[in-house]
């Protein structure tokens, strides 16, 4: 599939309770590269293999959670078209001027039915991955610093109105449904995993009564071996681990869930399969939600449904 329209999750702005402690964690334990700080005090990071200026933005606040997630679209014309399409669909949008986030162009901001703030943007400065575009080496020292993920990959968000949200993403934003978990009634969505690319998921949702909650943001590693190395680094640094290393039945990824110093859950994972828009979605029934989420334990841990920020 040619990736057109919405291409990928590009940035996430997180709220943290203690900025210095969080910067230390994201830089030296997770191993992201700090790329800037702005007048508002926000600190910007990217994973070593990402080319755009920033993907994770930290903002000190009095509560944890996610302010917004931004998706990069193909170009300016796509941004204008999607803004019109959203408005025609009945979603009110707002323009955030270029530069409000460092090295980032104009953004189209709107709220989705789960209560989360989403943004689309076409431009973010290419600062490269530390390698030239001509004759690069396969990796750089920064790729071994801390856990050292390749990229910010996806998020799992908790909120109500999954059916309406799915319609918006598939009918307006060009996503396709990859996997879903049904509720006890065998019809309603308990969870959905959607993609705008080849990735098994670019975004996922679990049905939850409180709007706008973050379950986790996820970072991609290369191999299962690197997932085990990540677990060692977490333990060395006394990181609060939720579960893992284990495997998800959904998307087949090998994974660890853990928490940042403010209690925001993050995931470091590897693997999973590739998807195409013509693939029939995979369905998990309510009685199999255990192995769907945690394939080895075959049951949810009690934190999965109740601990969010």
């Amino acid at each position, binding site marked *: 599939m040619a990736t057109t329209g919405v291409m990928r999750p590009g940035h996430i702005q997180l709220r943290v309770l203690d900025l210095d402690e969080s910067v230390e964690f994201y830089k030296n334990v997770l191993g992201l590269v700090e790329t800037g700080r702005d007048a508002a005090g926000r600190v910007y990071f990217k994973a070593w293999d990402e080319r755009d200026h920033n993907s994770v933005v930290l903002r000190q606040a009095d509560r944890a959670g996610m302010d917004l997630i931004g998706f990069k679209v193909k170009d300016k014309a796509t941004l204008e078209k999607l803004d019109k399409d959203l408005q025609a669909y009945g979603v009110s949008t707002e323009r955030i001027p270029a530069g409000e986030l460092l090295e980032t162009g104009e953004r189209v901001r709107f709220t989705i039915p789960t209560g989360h703030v989403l943004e689309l943007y076409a431009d973010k400065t290419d600062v490269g991955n530390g390698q030239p575009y001509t004759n690069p080496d396969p990796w750089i020292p920064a790729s071994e610093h801390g856990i050292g993920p390749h990229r910010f990959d996806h998020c799992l968000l908790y909120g109500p109105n*999954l059916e309406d949200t799915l319609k918006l993403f598939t009918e307006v934003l060009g996503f396709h449904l990859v996997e879903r978990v049904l*509720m006890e009634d065998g019809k309603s969505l308990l969870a959905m995993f959607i993609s705008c690319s080849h990735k098994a998921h670019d975004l996922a949702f679990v049905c939850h009564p409180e709007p706008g909650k973050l379950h986790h943001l996820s970072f991609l590693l290369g191999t299962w071996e690197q997932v085990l190395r990540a677990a060692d680094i977490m333990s060395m640094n006394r990181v609060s681990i939720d579960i893992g290393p284990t495997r998800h039945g959904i998307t087949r990824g090998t994974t660890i869930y853990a*928490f940042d110093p403010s209690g925001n859950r993050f995931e470091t994972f590897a693997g999973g399969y590739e998807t195409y828009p013509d693939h029939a979605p995979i369905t998990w029934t309510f009685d199999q939600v255990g192995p769907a989420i945690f394939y080895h334990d075959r049951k949810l841990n009690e934190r999965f449904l109740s601990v969010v920020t």
Partner: protein
Amino acid sequence: MSTFFNVTIEDTGEVYRCRSDETLLCGMERLCKRGIPVGCRGGGCGVCKIQILSGEYQKRVMSREYVSVEEEAASIVLACRVRPLSDISLSVIGKMKKNVCATTDKVREGAG
């Protein structure tokens, strides 16, 4: 040498020895004791909410979403952000509530 203090969970009568350099929640977990729900361990999710009934303690910044200024003044805190400075007696407020939507319709009503 770290100092140890006795922590009593009044709801269940559970008593455990907590080090002065670890949080009330970590101390409980390390000894495989139960009583306070364990979530993020970072002051962000609110499930470990407790009220300190007696004793001295040291606290770190915690999410305002779950502990208001008034509550904090009334010694209502998150157990993962509090270290003991003396023996502590506490009661548990936080719950590990399963927030699954029963059906989409109910959620819509709930979200109003």
